[in-house]
C-alpha cells in the first residue's frame, strides 16, 4: 500500500510517497517534473522486496517551494534528499535517478558513501557541457521563451526514444507539459553548472549508469567517460530509448529490479564496464 506524507524540513513541507517493506530505494525525478514519473515503479517495485521512496523535489509537484525560490544548485536537492531520507528512517538506501535526478544520484553516491548502498544513474554524466547557462538564464523571462508549452511538448516528444509507440510518447509529452517553466529552467541551470568530474573517485557504492541511445540531452561518450572513472561501474546504452527510461520502457520496474539485484551481488574484483549496444 502506498502512503503519502508531508515531511517538514527547515519549516517547509516536502511531499513524499512510500510503498513496500525492505531496503529503501529513493527515486529522483527529472527537471521540472515530479514523482509522478515514478508512479509505476512505486506500485510495482515493492513486489521485489523494497521500500520505495518517491519525493517531489522542492518547488515541484505537491512540495512547497524551496526557501530561496527556484533552486539553481543540485547540491541543494542532494542535501534535502539526505535529510528527507533520514526523516523517513532510511539511514542507508539505494538511489535511482534520471537526468538531473541521475546527476543528483551520482552526487549522493559521492557525498554520502556511508549512506548510499547502490546507485543507478540514468541519462546523466559528471558534467553536461553542451548547454549554455546564459541562454537558459535569458529564457527564465517568459518574453524570451515564447511558445514554451508547445516547445516542452515537442521537445519531450523528440527526447523520447524511437521504440516508444507514438500515442504513449504523446502522453509522456502531455504529462511533461504540466511543468512550471521557471522551475524547469532553474533545474537545467543547476544541471549545467554542476560539475562532478573531480568527485567521482569518492563514489564507493556499486554504480550502474544507463543512457538511452536516442537521448539528445546527453552524449554517450560523456557518459562513458564518467562510467570509466568509477571502478566496477556498469554502463548500459539502451537502443530505442530516449531521456526517460522509467516512463518509456514497458517493463521498467522489472528491468530496474534486475539492475538492483546485480548491484547487490558481491564482486570479488572490479568489473570492466559492460555494454548493451544499440
Amino acid at each position, binding site marked *: 500500500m502506498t502512503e503519502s506524507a508531508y515531511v517538514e524540513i527547515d519549516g517547509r513541507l516536502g511531499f513524499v510517497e512510500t510503498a513496500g517493506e525492505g531496503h529503501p530505494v529513493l527515486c529522483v525525478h527529472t527537471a521540472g517534473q515530479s514523482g509522478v514519473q515514478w508512479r509505476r515503479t512505486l506500485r510495482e517495485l515493492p513486489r521485489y522486496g523494497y521500500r520505495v521512496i518517491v519525493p517531489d523535489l522542492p518547488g515541484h509537484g505537491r512540495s512547497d517551494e524551496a526557501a530561496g525560490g527556484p533552486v539553481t544548485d543540485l547540491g541543494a536537492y542532494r542535501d534535502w534528499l539526505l535529510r528527507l531520507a533520514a526523516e523517513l528512517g532510511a539511514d542507508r538506501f539505494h538511489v535511482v535517478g534520471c537526468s538531473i535526478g541521475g546527476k543528483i544520484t551520482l552526487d549522493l553516491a559521492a557525498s554520502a558513501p556511508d549512506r548510499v548502498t547502490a546507485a543507478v544513474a540514468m541519462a546523466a554524466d559528471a558534467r553536461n557541457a553542451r548547454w549554455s547557462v546564459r541562454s537558459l538564464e535569458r529564457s527564465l523571462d517568459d518574453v524570451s521563451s*515564447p*511558445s514554451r508549452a508547445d*516547445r516542452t511538448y515537442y521537445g519531450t516528444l*523528440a527526447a523520447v526514444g524511437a521504440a516508444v509507440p507514438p500515442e504513449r510518447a504523446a502522453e509522456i509529452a502531455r504529462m511533461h507539459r504540466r511543468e512550471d517553466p521557471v522551475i524547469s529552467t532553474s533545474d537545467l541551470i543547476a544541471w549545467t553548472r554542476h560539475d562532478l568530474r573531480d568527485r567521482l573517485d569518492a563514489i564507493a557504492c556499486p554504480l550502474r549508469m544507463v543512457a538511452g541511445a*536516442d537521448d*539528445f540531452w546527453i552524449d554517450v561518450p560523456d557518459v562513458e567517460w564518467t562510467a570509466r572513472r568509477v571502478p566496477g561501474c556498469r554502463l548500459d546504452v539502451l537502443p530505442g530509448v530516449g531521456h526517460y527510461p522509467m516512463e518509456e520502457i514497458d517493463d521498467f520496474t522489472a528491468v530496474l529490479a534486475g539492475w538492483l539485484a546485480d548491484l547487490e551481488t558481491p564482486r570479488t574484483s572490479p568489473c570492466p564496464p559492460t555494454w548493451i549496444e544499440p
Partner: protein
Amino acid sequence: MTALYLEDFRPGTRFTSGVREITAGDIDAFTRLSGDAAAVHTDPAYAAAQGFAGPLAHGPYGVAIVFGLLHELGIVDTTAIALLDLNWRFRNPLVAGDAVRFEMTVTRCRRASRGDAGVVNRHVRLVTTDGTVASEGSTAFLVKARDPGGPPTFPGRDFATPAWAALLAHRLAANEEFRTGTATFDGSIGFAAGPESVQVRVYRGRVLETGRWTPGGPTFTVSGDELAWVELADAPRNDFIARSMRGAFGAYGNTYEHLRLHKAIVAAWDCIRDLAGEDA
C-alpha cells in the same frame, strides 16, 4: 554494377564502396606525385613527435581514394561527364595500415538547362573500417541523362527551391497544425538547404506566396546542409527537434519568432517529409 544516369539518382540514395588499405608505399608514391614531401608525411620520427602513429597520408590522397573506390563501384565510369566541385573537411588523420571505405549519400539532383545531362551533388564520408570518420565533404558532378529533355527529377526532393516551395505550399495550406501554429503570424518563413533558399510568405495561417524573395525578406530562416535535409526527409520519424538540438539544423533571423512558431515548423516538416515521400 551497371552505369547510372541522371534519372537513376535520387536525393537520399546511399552507396557504400569497397575497402582500400593505405600502405606506406601509397604515401611515398603520393609524396612523389604531388611534390608534398613535408616531414609529417615522410619522416616517421617527426610524425611520432607530433603525436601521430606514423607518417600521415596526405589529405588529398584520401580524396583521391574516394574517386578510386567510386571507379571500382563502376556506377558512373561511362556516364560521368565532369567533376564540378569539391568541399572537404579533414576530421582525423590516416596512416599506413588504416583501411577505408566511403559512404556516399546523394543530396541533390537537377536536370541542367541543356537537358541531356544533370548535376548530382553527393555527401561523402571517408571512414576507416573501425568507424572513424577520416574526412567528409560534398562533391557535385555532371552526369548524362538517359532521356534528354525529360521532366525534372524528384521535384519533391529538390529542397528549398522555388518549384519545391510551390509544391510544399499546397501541403502547408491543408495542414491544420501549420494553420493554427501561424494563426497570429505575419511574415515569411525561410528554408535553406545548403546553398539553396526559398521563402514562404504567411499571413494569419494562410500561405500567400512562395519564392526566392519577398518584399520584407524572411522573418527567420530554418537552415541545414543538404545532407541534413535528405536524412530527415527519410528518417523513420519526424525528429526535427532532436536533430536541431544536435546541431543539424539552425535558425537565423528573428529567432524569437522562430521559437514562437515551434509547432508550425514541426508541422512544416511533416509536410516536407510527406512531399519527399511522394518521390520515394
